[in-house]
């Protein structure tokens, strides 16, 4: 007796799987699966299906079926006449014929005619649900209007389609960042117990024309290295304040940026006049800057408090008459 449904699948879908899974698979709504779930609604079956399908005509014999299944290691084959799907023959049908010794029987007398199919314009989620509710390994895909066989879809096709779509989305997002390197990747490529990148800048004292240039240069480099905009912003606000301090109060000094994958540190070292009272200097509004500096818009006594607010770590040491060491970090 002919079976009403066909089992036509990859290795997993022998008779055992029939009827085992009745519930559609539930996709849990976590942040990680949300994108995949969204994609399964957006993508169409025709985007995931295999378009090259081997078929047989109904007037062929089961011997021909045996050859195709054996040669291509298929577990079933759609039967097509004038482009229309008329049935399906599975490996189980073949085994039954082998056992009965009826290999000369025509395919049309053996094939299952009630075939569960999908339309090519259905969303991928329909295929996923059907795999869950029927337990089959694959479904023929038809064109909705002409009802012609367009392709065939397996669970593997769905996985490959989702993965490649996710990958191209990822690449699209990466390339949006322009020519940014991924600093984490750079560091991963040169493994050691401790890796760091040091960028040193010398700031000239009293050179108000160029004040701000070094911080701006550092900002450009951090952008290229792929740090997040907000972390760069916090670090560069601090660097700019520190650079202005070097220009205003000292005869010059160094800004040394130490780049690590998870942390950016700037050390500002000068041999200027030093800060006699650090506690006082940290008070918002306290300033010893001369008037001409204030006219330039600086020296409002907000520099050091500003650095403290913007950074995750700040260390200030000063020796009056000898110099000042300032160090601040932003974590990424």
């Amino acid at each position, binding site marked *: 007796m002919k079976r009403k449904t066909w089992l036509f699948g990859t290795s997993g879908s022998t008779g055992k799987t029939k009827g085992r899974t009745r519930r559609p698979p539930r996709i849990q709504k976590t942040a990680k699966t949300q994108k995949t779930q969204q994609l399964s609604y957006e993508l169409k079956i025709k985007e995931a299906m295999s378009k090259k399908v081997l078929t047989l005509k109904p007037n062929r014999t089961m011997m021909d079926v045996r050859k195709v299944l054996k040669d291509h290691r298929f577990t079933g084959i759609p039967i097509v006449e004038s482009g229309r799907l008329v049935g399906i023959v599975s490996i189980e049908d073949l085994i039954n014929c082998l056992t009965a010794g009826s290999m000369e029987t025509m395919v049309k007398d053996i094939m299952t005619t009630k075939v569960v199919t999908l339309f090519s314009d259905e969303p991928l989620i329909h295929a996923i649900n059907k795999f869950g509710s029927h337990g089959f390994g694959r479904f023929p895909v038809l064109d909705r209007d002409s009802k012609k066989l367009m392709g065939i879809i397996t669970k593997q096709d769905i996985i490959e389609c989702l993965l490649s779509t996710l990958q191209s989305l990822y690449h699209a997002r990466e390339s949006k960042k322009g020519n940014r390197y991924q600093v984490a990747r750079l560091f991963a490529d040169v493994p050691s117990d401790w890796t760091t990148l040091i960028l040193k800048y010398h700031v000239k004292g009293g050179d*108000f*024309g160029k*004040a*701000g*240039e070094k*911080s*701006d240069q550092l*900002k450009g480099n951090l952008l290229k290295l792929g740090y997040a*905009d*907000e972390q760069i*912003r*916090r670090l*560069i*606000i601090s660097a*700019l*304040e520190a650079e*202005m301090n070097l220009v205003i109060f000292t005869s010059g000094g160094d800004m040394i940026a130490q780049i690590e994958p998870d942390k950016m540190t700037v050390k500002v070292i000068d041999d200027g006049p030093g800060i006699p009272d650090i506690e006082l200097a940290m008070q918002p509004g306290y300033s010893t800057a001369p008037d001409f500096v204030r006219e*330039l*818009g*600086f020296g*409002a*006594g*907000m*520099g050091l408090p*500003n650095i403290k*607010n*913007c*950074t*995750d770590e700040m260390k200030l040491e000063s020796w009056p008459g000898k110099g000042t060491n300032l160090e601040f970090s932003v974590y990424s």
Partner: protein
Amino acid sequence: MKIKQIMKILEAEAIGAQRDNLDIKTGCGSDLMSDVLVFTRPGSMLLTGLTSRQVIYTASTAGVEAICFVRGKKPPEETIKLAEEKKIALMITNLPMFESCGRLYDKGLVGCSELAGASEK
């Protein structure tokens, strides 16, 4: 608020490249650059009477997208050039600082009363 609208409110004149469709979220008026660094948020507009290059560096660091020079102060060429490089829109208004800020605030452009870094840490 769109730059185009802001220019109309301030009766301002654009300098250099126009960015009519730039959307400004918050405003800040100051002649103190440290205050700009502390009190602005990315996507804001700065109103200032200073025209030095440091204004552009400060604006760029703080994420300021547009600057309006008040009291009719015309910035030097080097400032305009640096602003173009940093893609910061520039304009001049003859209005003084208080009136410029007042007009924008009145039309719904809010201030950035939030310490820089305070919300990001």
